[in-house]
């Protein structure tokens, strides 16, 4: 049930919207929803890894902003776009790794602290290095990653599916993924079983930072611009997608596909409500209600399960 809950939510939401707006259920629109969700999906994937370890990463929106500005500046300076992409992802991963090292080496009490710090530092630096202005008119080779299509399918959509498939294998089929779940399930037991907890946590925050930078590339490519305010508040959307997708805030639980569905539910809601001429302000209200409702449904489900168990005993 936990596995199919988010999917059911997506189907129900989509069905209702398709009755309310005839345009909703067209190929163009659905692909558009997916494309619009792609940046959030990339951030949410990193956030998922962190949340499985019972952590939180508040810095992904700002890391996206800083990477976005830096990649645009490098492109403007004439650096070839593949080098720029590689450099941006490396910088994002390095910033994320810094989060992880601050958490594990300085023994800060909770990931909230280092990532809150990084959220401010990275956003501040994004403004400092760009002077506060957007950097527009980027080369076509780079823009392809955000705005291009292959056989009608937007490149960001293909990218998201590929990256998600990769991380699905990582989380469910490798020993590293197994360690991530073990740490979230019981950090102390993981430590006592010989798992290098600090190293794995650092890895997870580095991956989250790298994925945020990947999101920056998609966003800058799509908008043909790197701007310092990019990804403002995006960390909260990413957290929302992970939670709607069935991951537990207490750690140890969560899947890649659940998170993708979580990101799509948010995209579908925003798209559908826009089609219905609902103002962005009211859209926020709806999203807020959905977040709380999704978790509440999960709580209810768990409670009935325990009750049933008790009855059986």
């Amino acid at each position, binding site marked *: 049930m936990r596995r199919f809950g988010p999917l059911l939510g997506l189907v129900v939401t989509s069905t209702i919207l398709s009755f309310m707006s005839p345009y909703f259920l067209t190929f163009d629109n659905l692909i558009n929803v997916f494309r619009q969700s792609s940046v959030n999906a990339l951030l949410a994937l990193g956030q998922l890894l962190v949340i499985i370890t019972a952590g939180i990463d508040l810095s992904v929106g700002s890391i996206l902003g800083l990477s976005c500005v830096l990649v645009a500046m490098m492109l403007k300076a004439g650096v070839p776009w593949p080098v720029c992409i590689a450099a941006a992802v490396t910088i994002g991963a390095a910033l994320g790794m810094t989060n992880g090292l601050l958490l594990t080496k300085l023994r800060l009490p909770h990931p909230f602290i280092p990532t809150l710090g990084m959220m401010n530092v990275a956003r501040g630096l994004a403004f400092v290095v760009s002077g506060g202005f957007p950097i527009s008119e980027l080369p076509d080779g780079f823009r392809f990653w955000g705005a291009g299509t292959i056989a009608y399918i937007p490149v960001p959509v293909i990218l998201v599916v590929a990256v998600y498939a990769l991380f699905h294998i990582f989380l469910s089929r490798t*020993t*590293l993924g197994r360690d991530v779940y*073990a740490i979230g*399930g*019981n950090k*102390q*037991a993981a430590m006592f*079983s010989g798992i*290098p907890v600090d190293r794995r946590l650092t890895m997870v925050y580095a991956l989250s930072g790298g994925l945020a930078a990947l999101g920056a590339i998609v966003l800058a490519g799509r908008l043909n611009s790197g701007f310092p305010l990019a990804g403002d508040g995006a960390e909260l959307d990413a957290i929302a997608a992970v939670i709607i997708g069935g991951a537990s805030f207490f750690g140890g*639980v969560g899947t890649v596909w659940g998170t993708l569905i979580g990101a799509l539910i948010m995209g579908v809601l925003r798209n559908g409500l826009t089609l219905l001429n609902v103002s962005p302000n009211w859209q926020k209200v709806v999203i807020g209600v959905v977040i709380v409702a999704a978790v509440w449904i999960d709580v209810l489900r768990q409670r009935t399960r325990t009750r049933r168990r008790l009855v059986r005993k």
Partner: protein
Amino acid sequence: MSTMDSESLLSMQHITKTFSGVRVLDDVCFEVRPGEVHALIGENGAGKSTLMKIVTGLYEADRGQVFWKGQPVEIKTPHQAHELGINIVHQELMLVPQLSIGENVFLGRHPVRSGFSRWVRWSDLNSRAKSLLEGLGHPLDPSRPVGELSIAEQQLVEIARALAFSAELIIMDEPTSPLSDHETTRLFRTISQLKTRGVSVVYISHRLKEIHQIADRVTVLRDGRHIATRPISETTTDQLVRYMVGREIGEQCSDNKTPVEAEEALRVEGLSASGKFYDISFSVHRGEIVGLAGLVGAGRTELVETLFGACEAESGEVYLDGQAVTINTPMDAVRHRLALVADDRKAKGLVLGGSVRFNIALAAPGRFARYGLFLNSAREKEVAKDLARELHLKTPSVEQQVIYLSGGGQQKVVLAKWLSADSKVFILDEPTRGIDVGSKAEIYDLIRRLAQRGVAILLVSSELEEILNLADRILVMHRGRISGELSREEATDELIMQLATGGAVH
């Protein structure tokens, strides 16, 4: 002795208490006179804490009567106990570290301005706290936060707090276990102060030497029964140990092997971590079961967790198969094929939300992986099924979450985890704590079979019977040091207890 004494402050008559069918207290009588220090002793599980929880209103007795100053009373809540003047200084101190000494002393009953019951009179509070502490011989500044204080000073704040409640009876549960010798002496001076004020003290301790120093009388409980109450001057340490242990040495299954000639698997030399344990040296041979006995708080768990790399040692060497090794993290320990079945399986042993298979593979995912990275679920499943069968694990499948297993089942999963990691040295810390009799017997059986396979085993246990039944050799710890070593032949309950309580062996 159990007659209603007119001069008694507290008198508990024929107290019986049962928990889910198990009689924890059986017709126990206990009496405290005004201004006396009355020691209450017994092995773990003898019923001391339960008796004191009845006095302080946490439990209700099934049968029996409590008299306070000669009047029958019913103490149903801790609040009622406070009202009467009964206070307890807990083993885990119950203070708010962020608040000041003065605030802690008067927590919940700040002196207030008349008519404004929410308006605290700070000056009054501090001066009253100060005079209480001075009366106990320790002029501490009442405005200091409690978090800054040493454990000994915090105890003092708890005692002052009890006096602020106008306590006439203070119960101290193992007060000296976290204290240094010097601090212990100071605490004894404070207790003498209390006596001169006419306050009675019930003093629970395992340390028999201390009891002779501080107590006027002593009561011994064993297996929930009252064994003896004597003036301390008429008892000896030996006699008290005999009262505490009492039972005849049970029939042991004497396997007639003691593989002393086998190779040394683990050797520890001069291992120290200050405040925890000092200068520990011992060795365990292949196929040998070495018991590590001692009282709770003797430093055994700290020692084995340090050996396993979970805590830091300050000095000392560890050798495995004759080679010096450095173990700084549990990961190093696992790489050297060391296994630790920790004292708290839920906190340190298992991912409760994970499946049996997940947990069994936890310590050795690489062993089941292709290219060291990709999991081999089929192989994992196979190994998990084999181990579940071997250990008689009762579970519908290896995909079952371990949270739904019994305590014994969970412990078997922890053991299976280390079996699948192919460990050569097993450190077992209280391996049968809180599990059912059937699983217990199966785990004993497994421990013996492991030894027969040549695994070296260090068994930490507070159950003397368990150690006497399983161990080939027994080390005893007392206050962070190894106080003696006994061979299987010479070991008795009484000898172990003597070494564990710091008494000399004759």
